[in-house]
């Protein structure tokens, strides 16, 4: 990914990558995510997160969005 793309999407911290990786390790692989040209099971997404690929990044961003949403539901100050 070029520096321009990284700037547009913002940086994902090492801790955020680790959090999502740990969560994925416990998941069964029933659902698939369709993104870009491929479909990914949870196991596939774990590999993408570990590789820090575009798909892995997209998945981490998705999970971070969920965390923000969840915080809102709980009335916690938005992250």
């Amino acid at each position, binding site marked *: 990914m070029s520096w321009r793309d990284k700037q547009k999407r913002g940086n994902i911290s090492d801790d955020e990558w680790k959090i999502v990786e740990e969560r994925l390790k416990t998941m069964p692989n*029933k659902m698939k995510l369709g993104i*870009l040209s491929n*479909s990914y099971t949870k196991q596939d997404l774990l590999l993408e997160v570990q590789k820090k690929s575009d798909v892995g990044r997209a998945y981490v961003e*998705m*999970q971070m*969005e*969920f965390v923000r949403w969840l915080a809102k539901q709980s009335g916690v100050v938005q992250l």
Partner: protein
Amino acid sequence: MVSKTEWSSSVIIGRCSCDDIVKYPFYWSEEIIEEANKIGRGFIDLKNENFTEQKFSKHMAEHNPKFVFLNGHGNDFFAMGFNKQPVLIANKNDYLLRGKIAHIISCFTAKFLAQSAMDKGCEGYMGYKDYFYIWFIEEDPVKDIVAVMFQEAVNEASKILINGGTIKEAFEKSQGVYDKRINECKGRYFSPRTSEEMRDNLQDIISALIQNKKNQIYFSVDS
């Protein structure tokens, strides 16, 4: 031969079933075709090997449809058709959207392609400025109870448009469907009867719905 005037309120639909992902919006389009038939709106169904730049350009020129609904992969600069070949390309054939209403289901095309098309006189454009996600649990889209949540948000917009609604109305309705589905999943997520496994799956579904809702944008000459 049908006159150009008669077709000028019609819909052109581009779709292909050439991979695991695009077969979902391919199937979702059946509902829109049914709706077009119900209200007597003509449509041109460019599917699979017919969903190419050449055939798209030809039918746009011949039939002058009002609505352009394309489903497939995409990037900032073009919407793709059969075998991921570019079909609608910024600064090449996006002038074909002059005076049209476009609803394009793909990743990224609402970022640059949309603005390029609006600059060329497109009347309204709705799509996604970043990734477009679908979670699915079945091989057959017909049976998929997870993917139907994504289908509903997409198709609600298309149905509003071909029934004469504005792009803004279609966008707001679609956003409302995303909210409805997010809230539905939220109810299950927080239920004490939901298993941990299911809660984790719901987290993924909710986050994809949130992202799709966030990435959905529209442009209109009226706003």
